[in-house]
């Protein structure tokens, strides 16, 4: 499902240049739940954004479901993100003026099943948010916020889910819920899930663990 070959990414130039990714190669098959571990600043987020069709690598190649998103123009790449990818962030990144239902539905894309076949309600029920439909993010707990973010990420049935420290701000119970949900999605829906974390608690749940250090995969 996901193939990355020899990805390199450097920020800045000259003496101030920071090499965030250095010859990173990895692959995640459909149905796999893979953890990317590493200390802060090791390039995990850069890797996630590069794999997520948002940050073009300086060199190397990314393929999601056989398509290299960086060969697409900006508009097609946006469509690619909407239909093939799902994102979960540590800070949730919900839209503050939309309620729970709208935050989940805002990712819906025409021509997909997202939001059009009761998918929104299904996900809301799956994540136990039925009683919070009209609430805005400011009125939710952190766990609820992350569940809304998860529901939004899974709305369009993406083939690849990229989660950046999704449990970083959560208590144990909510963290367990999120990790379980991601793992279940990989298993049940046959998607590839890549979760970046520095928390060793989730290693047992992973099918595979990728360790990173100074921009390299060890």
């Amino acid at each position: 499902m996901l193939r990355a070959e020899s990805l390199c990414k450097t920020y800045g130039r000259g003496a101030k240049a920071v090499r965030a990714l250095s010859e990173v190669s990895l692959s995640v098959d459909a149905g796999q739940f893979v953890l990317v571990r590493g200390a802060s600043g090791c390039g995990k987020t850069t890797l996630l954004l590069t794999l997520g069709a948002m940050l073009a690598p300086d060199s190397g190649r990314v393929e999601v479901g056989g398509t290299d998103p960086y060969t697409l123009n900006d508009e097609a790449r946006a469509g690619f993100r909407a239909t093939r990818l799902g994102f979960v962030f540590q800070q949730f990144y919900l839209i503050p003026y939309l309620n729970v239902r709208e935050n989940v539905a805002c990712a819906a894309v025409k021509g997909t099943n997202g939001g059009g076949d009761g998918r929104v309600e299904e996900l809301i029920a799956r994540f136990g948010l039925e009683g919070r439909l009209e609430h805005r993010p400011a009125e939710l707990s952190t766990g609820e916020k992350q569940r809304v973010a998860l529901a939004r990420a899974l709305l369009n049935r993406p083939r690849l889910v990229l989660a950046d420290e999704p449990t970083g701000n959560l208590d144990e119970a909510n963290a367990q819920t999120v990790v379980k949900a991601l793992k279940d999605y990989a298993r049940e829906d046959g998607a590839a899930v890549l979760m970046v974390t520095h928390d060793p608690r989730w290693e047992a749940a992973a099918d595979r663990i990728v360790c990173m250090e100074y921009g390299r995969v060890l």
Partner: protein
Amino acid sequence: MKLGTLMVRELLHRKVNALAGILAMAAAAGACAGVVLLLRVFDAQTERLLASRRTASAKAWAIFQDEMRKDMLRLGFNLMILNREQNLSTPDEQTKTMPEEYGAKLAAAKLAEINHIVPFLQRKLWWPEKSRWITLVGTTGDAYIKAFGKQTPMVQAVAPGKAVPGYAIHKGLGLVPGQKIALGGWTFEVARGLEQRGFEEDEMIYIDLRTAQDMLKLPGKINGILAVNCVCVGPEALLTIRKRVEALLPGTRVIEHNSKLVTRAEVRGKAAKEADAELARQERLRTELRAGRVTAGTTLIPLVALAAAFVLGVLTWENVGRRRLEIGILRALGFTARRIQALFLAKAMAIGLVGAAAGYGAAVVAVKLWLATGEPWEMFVEPLLPALLLGGSLVLAAAASWIPAQLAAGVDPAMVLLQEGG
């Protein structure tokens, strides 16, 4: 999710930003509408004022014409047709002549206003036999009477060899009908004496025209023609008859002779012209005032539009900056740059529309209730102005927010998420 829903939610979420934009656009639209509506009120009010003055002037002119017509029918007036070279400062001392047939020519023209035509040859001369100045007048009497048989001649013809002295002469010299008098070597018999007239005719002696031409050695010549007891059907005819006679008899000019009516007509005509001139002056003043208002309006409208566009542009800019993370999230979720641009343009245009509608409504209510309570609502409520304002506000809002919207579309989601993720 539909852009409209997203836009409305955000508008309601950041009310102050939206309200500031709406107020700016409302001020611009209100100013534009106010300028146009005030101009309409000005046009309507001044037009009514001028129309009432035009009506009053027309009424006064009609009364004047009617009075003149009555006066003319009652009084009549006299014209004297002279050689153009004749010195008018001494019209009684006739020295210039014209062909005698001018009398017949004028008679043949049968001008409606002229009742009697009297050609004459006149000369002020010294009467050596009586040692005094007299005015000798040779005449054929009336050469033309319009209603012959119904009107009596104004000047009686004098038979050859006869003389008709004026009152001062026959009274002063004690002349009686039948008495022979010698005049410059010619002998005449006094036919009758004239009644006292109280003006220069009292110093005249009328004789036959041919005899006068022989005496003065001016055969076939006359000094002028009296058109006596003329009647005009209106003051315009009185004031234009001069030109018509002068065109008919080349080399002549026409003066009014002992006519109070002419003076009255001229005074009244002048007054009427002055009234017309005053009306024209007020119309010019109105045009100038209107032009001033149009100039002020055409200066004000672009200024307020620019100011509103500036405010809306700054507000959109600020909104883009504030929503940078949100733009990054939406881009990460698959929103295209074009949708992001459309989102900001649509918001600015919605603010423009609401602002324009509010500004137009406020301008209508303010102008109607404050300055034009007497004007009908139809003057203010019509489709063209609001349509122009709404259309203009859409264009203005789109133009003002174009650059900020482009900036929003250009936001790199990866950079935003990297920075925010810190």
